[in-house]
């Protein structure tokens, strides 16, 4: 049974992630008074890209990077206790492993970008890395907030314990910081600085096309869904129905709400410069540090 939960994790993410991406595109279009593509457009995009010609820069790292990116995000997803249910693999990792694994995806993007030899890709990867350094601590501290409460770094234990003692000041501060960082986690406006289509032409992905780009695209939308789902699992109080399928469905409904928020936020905010964003992230880090400090004292 435990093994089955892993399959559910993977399938739910692989199947629903493009849909949520479609929701974002639809809402963005509506906010901008456009008709917008159909909600299932991202599925078409992926399928089409998989069949197109694959232009390569000729190096091994360039070809390997998209596969590693997708593999790393899938690696993170399998450990997630979706539907409040720890699966067979959850006990083999703790939150530090998860944090490091998440950076592995970012690293593959950067390595792919740098080995493409494109100048814009290098600019984009430099920005991507700064964003990673500055927002990853917010994620780490969300986990640590739970970990110090329960004295365990196990994934299931620390994730479910963040809100264990009710919504004290520390949890509220952390939740606010996570929400503010969410746009940066998923690379949406105002923090889509690394890709910045109209400025540096998709940055790290400029040289990618066809199936390689499809893998990167899938990586991005899966990552986006992971961060949204994590918010739901960590901060929304559990509505345990007792039936696993229903729990997963309820969580997905909340994820949809989070995505609507992401879309509205993204559609109404202009992009920041990297140095402006950096100051913003610094405030978030300070706030999350304060939250962890408060939680040690049980506030």
């Amino acid at each position: 049974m435990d093994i089955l939960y892993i399959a559910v994790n993977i399938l739910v993410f692989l199947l629903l992630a493009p849909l949520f991406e479609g929701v974002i595109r639809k809402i963005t279009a509506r906010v901008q008074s456009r008709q917008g593509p159909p909600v299932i457009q991202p599925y078409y995009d992926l399928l089409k890209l998989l069949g197109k010609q694959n232009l390569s820069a000729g190096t091994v790292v360039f070809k390997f990077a998209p596969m590693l990116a997708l593999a790393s995000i899938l690696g993170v997803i399998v450990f997630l206790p979706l539907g409040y249910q720890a699966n067979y693999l959850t006990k083999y990792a703790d939150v530090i492993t998860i944090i490091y694994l998440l950076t592995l995806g970012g690293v593959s993007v950067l390595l792919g970008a740098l080995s493409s030899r494109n100048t814009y890709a290098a600019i984009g990867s430099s920005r991507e890395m700064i964003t990673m350094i500055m927002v990853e601590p917010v994620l780490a501290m969300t986990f640590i907030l739970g970990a110090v409460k329960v004295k365990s770094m196990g994934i299931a234990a620390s994730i479910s314990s963040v809100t264990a003692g009710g919504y004290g000041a520390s949890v509220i501060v952390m939740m606010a910081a996570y929400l503010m960082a969410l746009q940066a986690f998923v690379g949406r406006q105002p923090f889509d600085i690394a890709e910045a289509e109209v400025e540096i032409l998709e940055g790290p992905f400029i040289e990618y096309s066809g199936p390689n780009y499809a893998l990167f695209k899938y990586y991005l939308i899966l990552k986006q869904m992971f961060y949204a789902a994590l918010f739901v699992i960590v901060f929304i109080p559990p509505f345990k129905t007792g039936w696993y399928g229903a729990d997963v469905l309820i969580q997905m409904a909340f994820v949809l709400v989070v995505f609507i928020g992401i879309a509205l936020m993204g559609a109404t905010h202009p992009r920041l410069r990297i140095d402006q964003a950096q100051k913003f992230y610094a405030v978030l880090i300070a706030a999350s540090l304060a939250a962890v400090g408060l939680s040690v004292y049980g506030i």
Partner: protein
Amino acid sequence: MNIDLYGILLSALALLFAAAVVVPFLSRKRKLAGWMNFILVAAAASMLLNISFISVFQGGGETTRVIQFGPVGIYFLIDGFSGFFIGIISFMAIMSALYSIQYMEHYPDYRLWSYYLCFPLFILGMIGIVTVDDLSIGFTVAWQVMTIASYFLIRFEYREKGNVRNANKYLILMELAWILIVAGTLFIDGVAMGDSLHAITAKLASTGGSSLLAVYGLLLVGFGFKAGMFPFGQLWLPDAHSIAPSPISALLSGVMIKTGVYGIIRTFFWMVPREGYTGLLWGIVIASFGAVTLFIGTVQALKQHDAKRLHAYHSIGQMGYIILGVGSALVMLNSGSEFVKLLSVIAIIGALYHTLNHTVFKGLLFLSTGSVLYATGTKDLNKLGGLMKLMPVTAVVAGIASLSIAGMPSFSGFASKWTIISSDVLAGSQMMFLVMFGIVALFTSAITLASYVKFFGMTFASSGVEWNVSHTIREVPATMLIPKIILAVLCMLQGLLPFLYYGIFIDIFKNSDGSIIQPMFSGVSLDEYIVNSVMGVSVTVPGIKDLVSSVAVPLVVMLVIVTGLVFAWLLKRSGGAEEKVAPTWLCGYQDLNDKNRYAAHNMYSAFKKALRWTGGNVKK
């Protein structure tokens, strides 16, 4: 014990001394001298590895023994703890000696007699530091041999501008560190020349409170100089490590600075009286130094674009992790709670584990950069780029080393950083500052990652050598590749099988008598708390049964990632798309050239600007 460890030790040291006497006479025949040096050093090092093996694995550590050198008697001590350091020093000595044979061909204008005179003496000095059991005569001899030999090795390229000055600075500061350590012992009541550490410890008990502060303070600063602790490390470490020939840089960063860690652990865990010792205070001091060192050192490293300076600053940063582990262990050991006390075991294991890992991956990084320097003649990241196709083996091993130092799961740095960070965060539930240190360490490892993405990306990926050096760069010869491949394999093993190494470190502390942490290792049965989980480590602390406190299983992570890769590969192939190599596209009106490429110094400029206050800035 049937085997006389001290006998083997003395013969190995004698052999090293003989190498220093004989090989310089051969130095006109450069290759021959290199091979002779390698053979003699390897012979001595295998004897030393034998000592290390016996004292670590068979628990055959011995008690302190006085050995007469003419009229003076010097106390020596080989236990599991010094055995570990003997092991890493002699292992790296073999790697470095093998690498030197070909590498020194790269300096045709310099005569090699001084190099082959000082190389064995340098090893001899380091072995001396970790085996002598006093802080006066034997310590002074070992320290001076190590310092003076390494001084001449560092100033090897004395015709380059600034090198002699930097080497002199190194010499002066190391002598200062020596003065501090020896002066520290003078505050002990009734201390005499040649006292063994046991005698010193006994005399410390009767030493007054304020003198005790002076003793420990001076010793911490003295050994801190050697270990690269902030702010002392910044004064000498980057300059010295970046100008030395690469095999020597690998020894300096890989093992020499570890003798500082050896000194700190010996001082604060062994040389302590039963009463009047404020371990909690010193633990907090050391852990704070560690946290500051790892953050500042790593941020300064991010700003470098000279590859060897970058590695050198990272040595400071990584030593910060080790010092943080040592300090945290001391804090936890002196806390009131049983839960936190048990975590001190994990923290000290983490410190030693990271010492081992850092030796291997930093040695590998310096050797890789040495190979790049050998093949291209430059170590400036702004000029390099695109070596992946030209030097594939070096690229792969440098990639493994970069992922290791950045702490990617299933590479070596991850296991030890995980150990240190998780113990700090868990203990943080009762001591707030420890959780903050843990978070700083986690944040810093993302900066390490950034720095090594830059190093790898700007050396092996991207582009640049075709304009700045030439199109015809060749991979380095086999004698320079073999040591790197061995180290790369070790990097993988140390990352994949953490439980194996945990076992070794537990044995080391269990079998080394006299430390204040030994009761934690032998008193409680650790099998219940530190559990093998598919060769990974799973920690469960008492009080909260059935709840895993922290767990890292690199093998499973590796398996998951490989499965993911297979899935990604299948997905990629599913559309049947054809593949074509295309030139870089720069909006159609220009080709890539040296003027419009993105150079290393541009990377992360906004972040570097925001952290200007940390120092270590580089002019463009």
